[in-house]
């Protein structure tokens, strides 16, 4: 946890410095003196300060104890990363394939990754859920979901 906290502190400081640098390019409000950069700048300074405190706390060994429980080699973490990737693909495909078609495939793949192997159940659930959501949103509530080539 100690190393992770220090890393997060450093990321926070970097973010704070970045914000501060960007706000320097904001125009000053001619009338008010307090322009668009005022609030972000205060936040950036505060963020840097508190991240420094976090780092110092952890260097001094006063941070939380124990492990973070995050292991980059854990197959579960790999599965999460894979699901993230597939979800991004899913979002990209929806406008072309349409919501229902994309969702049926997506749900099926996700259930497969979750180690489900009951094929009939998987097909039934993926089609059922996709059509149910489509029905509630598009038909009942008239919120247009992408239809893709089915339109």
């Amino acid at each position, binding site marked *: 946890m100690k190393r992770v906290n220090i890393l997060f502190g450093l990321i926070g400081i970097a973010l704070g410095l970045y914000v501060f640098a960007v706000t320097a390019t904001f125009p000053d*409000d001619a009338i008010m003196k307090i322009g668009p950069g005022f609030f972000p700048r205060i936040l950036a300074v505060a963020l840097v300060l508190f991240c420094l405190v976090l780092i110092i706390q952890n260097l001094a060994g006063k941070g939380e104890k124990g492990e973070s429980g995050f292991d980059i080699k854990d197959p579960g*973490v790999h599965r999460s990363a894979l699901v993230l990737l597939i979800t991004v693909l899913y979002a990209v495909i929806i*406008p072309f394939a349409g919501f229902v078609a994309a969702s049926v495939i997506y749900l099926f793949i996700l259930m497969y990754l979750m180690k489900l192997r009951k094929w009939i159940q998987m097909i039934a659930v993926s089609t059922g859920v996709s059509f149910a959501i489509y029905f509630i949103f598009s038909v009942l509530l008239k*919120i247009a979901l992408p239809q893709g080539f089915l339109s």
Partner: protein
Amino acid sequence: MNFELLLQGFANILFGKALIMVFLGVIGGILVGSLPGLTATMGIALLVPFTFGLPINESMGMLLGIFSGAIFGGSISAILIRTPGTPAAAATLLDGYPMAKRGEAGRALSMSVFASFIGGFTGALIMSFLAPQISKVALKFGAAEYFALAFFGLSIIISVSGNSIIKGIIAGLFGLLISTIGFDPISGFPRFTFGQMDLFEGPAFIPTLIGLFAFSEVFKGVETIVEKQQVVSKLTRFLPEWKDIKASWIDILKSSILGTFIGSIPGAGSDIAAFVGYSEAKRRSKTPEKFGTGMIEGVAAAESANNACTGGAMIPMLSLGVPGDAVTAVLLGAFVIQGLQPGPLLYRDHIDVVYNVFAAMMIANIVMFIVGALGVRIFAKVITINRNILIPAIFVLSVVGSFSMRNSMFDVGVALFFGVVGYFLNRFNFPASPILLALILGPMAESNLRRALVISDGSPLVLVTRPISVALLVLGVLSLVSSIIKQRKSQKASV
């Protein structure tokens, strides 16, 4: 208060088609509210065109039914799948979801129904009896007061920070920085938008919410594969158990009144009210450190506050013609379409309509209680679905939910981005609630501070020379100090 007219109002709603409309509205509202990405505002906005031509009793009955139903409905998904169905339910998930994980989904849900009802009904009562008086106070809120209110709300960050104050503050600052993305509210200058049109108004709130809470949780969910969902909630009753009511009735009453008042201030909505109610309950509790791990009082306080807000938000709308929040802004439109102008004129010329609204609001809450209590068993079943099926379904629902708010694939990207951020923050013990609170209150704090300064010609004295503003700022400082002290004590006790 004219009781004869109120009775007449009840009769009008109960013995007409209006009652059916209330039922339909409540059921529709619960559905819309429980689906992530569909809010009460949206549900009502979609239906308003269809109420044109309906008698005012029926249209108001249905719309108020949706309003009450949706605010309660948001808690269902908050409790079951850690996704606030509406922003109002954001505080509910803090303790509701841990309860569901423990196998107590039914207990949390029945408390949510009960607390929502008491809150909603109290709000409706206060609205009926005191609307003109309260709205006078609400009008006193200018930019300085709004800033002070936001500051007070932000002081709650410490109390929702979990076990590390420093990490809570960092998360809160991160959230506040995110809330500055987009057009500057005063000068219109686009900040941190990277030239992206979609970011001109900042990352949309609902997708961010879905990302931080729902996506982050299901990403965690796919990591460990459990064969069967083991948490099965025993549900043998409609109402919460007596011991739960006994434990939280003070919080429910307090939240109900607080929620109504916060709701009556134009621009302060049920999301803020829920957090204020939650933090009040935590402050009063003998075991504040247990909040966030599944305390029934947390669910009770948040849900009674946000439903009380519905009655509160109606107050300035009815008596001044000034909407109390986004939902009542749409409701105001629904009146106007019918040729009725809410405000003092409505009280003068159409007092019968006003009383019908009072009656409809109370009846809507009763109907919500009945439908909700009957539905709890069905809702709670969701969690007994095999996780290998439930998690993929939540993924799809989260994608649809973040898309449908603005019909934007960009927002799906926003939700995924915050899903990853939320996942890592969660992994490394950074609490997500301060980010949420910051996202709700950040824009309110900044724009009103700067607005106040524009009006005062740049003099910060305006913040401390107005009584309401001073009072709220002092309350904020007190709440900050006391929660830091409490947090320290409980940390020392646990080490």
